[in-house]
Structure formats: C-alpha cells, structure tokens
C-alpha cells in the first residue's frame, strides 16, 4: 500500500511520466481524475451551489490537514491556501518535483465547474510556493474582473489561459 499520506508523491511520479508523453496525455489524465472526483463533489455543487462547495472543502481542509481559509458570500467562494499540504509534500521529497505539479488542481476541478455553470479563477501565485487562491463565481463578469487581480492564472482542459 502506498499510504494515502504519500499519494501526492506518487501523483508527482505519474505527472513526470505523463509529461514525457505530451500535454494532451496529461490533460486526459486530469480529466480522468476529474471524472473520479465527481462522485465526491458534483452532487454537492448541483444541489447546494457555493454552500455545497464550502461543505466539500471544509471536509478536505480537515482530512488533508490544510492551512486554508474558506470564505463564502452570495457571489463567490474563496479558498485561500496558506500552506498547501500537497505541494509541500512534493517539495519535501527525495524524488524530484514535477515543475508543473500545481496544474493538476485546476486540471481536475475546472472541468467540474464548467459542467455546473460556475466560473473558476485560480491564482497559483507561484508553482514553487505551496500557497494559492481559488475563487469560484456565480457570475462570469465578476470572474473576468477577478482575473485581472491574479499573479499566476491557471487554466484547465478546455479553458486555456495566457
């Protein structure tokens, strides 16, 4: 058993392999993981919207030992990851980190927001710092406005940026 604690380091090895096979393969993998994740979050978003997202990430904050602030108002949900446990483990690793490790996060959740009619603005800030800010908006115009206030905007399959 690779412990669940070490999944991210396994994930990192998978990304490094897939990166050698091409970006289309990496995107196909993100979509496979996204599909896998639907069982955990899709119904919550469809039935409860932003409140359902808050419920999901409150659970994740606990189980993944995240240092994260969650803020919700009627327009948007904001996750401010102060210390990301996922990238932190990948960096605290005897194997080399994959340079675009952070891309996976928007890579799986972005397609789910696309399916549910929400608008994601994912500010990775830096791929070498374990922190980021994710905002999810009901209104597309507000999301577009928020994109102007990011340091490193992340895209996902079907939603290229930059």
């Amino acid at each position, binding site marked *: 058993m690779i412990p*669940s604690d070490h999944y991210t380091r396994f994930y990192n090895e998978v990304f490094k392999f897939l990166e050698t096979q091409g970006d289309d393969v990496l995107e196909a993998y993100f979509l496979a993981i996204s599909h896998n994740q639907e069982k955990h979050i899709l119904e919550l978003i469809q039935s409860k919207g932003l409140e359902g997202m808050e419920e999901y990430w409150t659970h994740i904050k606990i189980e993944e030992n995240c240092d994260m602030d969650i803020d919700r108002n009627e327009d948007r949900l904001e996750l401010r990851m102060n210390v990301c446990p996922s990238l932190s483990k990948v960096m605290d690793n005897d194997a080399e980190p994959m340079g675009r490790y952070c891309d996976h996060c928007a890579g799986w959740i972005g397609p789910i927001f696309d399916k549910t009619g929400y608008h994601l603005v994912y500010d990775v800030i830096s791929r070498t710092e374990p922190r980021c800010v994710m905002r999810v908006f009901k209104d597309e115009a507000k999301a577009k406005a928020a994109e102007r206030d990011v340091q490193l905007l992340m895209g996902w399959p079907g939603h290229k940026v930059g």
Partner: protein
Amino acid sequence: MSEKLRYAEEGEVHLDFHGATNTTVDFIIGKFGLDALNEIFRKVGKDVYRSIHEDLIAGDTEQLVAHWRHFFTRENCDYDIDVGDDEIVLTVRRCTAWHHVAKLVGTPSAHFCDQTSRTNEAMAEGSPFAIDTTITGPGACRQVIRRRA
C-alpha cells in the same frame, strides 16, 4: 519510532486518495500498458522511498518495518508484523486502502495491489533482501522480507 522515518505524517488521513490511485492505475494501463505502470512504481520505490531503499542496500530493514507500522496503523488496517531471525512477515488481514476503494467503485482494479508488490520490489532492488508480496484474498496480503539466497 517515527524518528527513523524519512516521511512520518501525522494528523488526519484522506482515504479518498486511494480512489484516485485506483483511477490512475487503470488510466496508465489503459493508455500505456502494464510496463509503464510498473516503471512508475519502480520510481516510487527507488526515488520517493530512497531513504528506505538505501537502508535496505546497507542491510538495514528497520526503517521499512517502522514505515509499515506507522502507516498501517494510521490507516487503521488490521495487520501484524512478525520479526523473526530469518524473515520479517507483514500480514495484512484487512487493507483499508483496498476496502475503501471497493466502497467507492465496487471492484478495485485487478492491478490495484501492484502498488504494493512493485514498490516493495523496487525498494529492495540491489539490496541483500527480497520482499515478496502474496495477495491472500480481497484486501489481504502477506509481505515477507528475507535475505536473498
């Protein structure tokens, strides 16, 4: 115990990661075949677990046994470890990872447990030890460390 471990996470556990591992196993085999999956697990065993791998090469099994105890306990597996003069036997009667995936998807990938077999082999590669993994039932296995003949 954990002072010896290169990785010794504490706090909560997120068992749903095992579901993502199952998805990954099927994805890699479906796109690239079993050899590609084996190579990824080989890198996990030799690179991610370099510290355990190097200890085994040096003839020291202590960290691997501590790793087993730490993580099988954290995941609330039903297991025991018998440290004998000639071999060390980890008996897993109920693997939490396998059963969690079974709860999520019904039937885990036929290759789900390769993560254990192949990673064990890679950790032991080039060392005086072999680590043999035998699947003894659904979500159950026996892992044996013994000196190579």
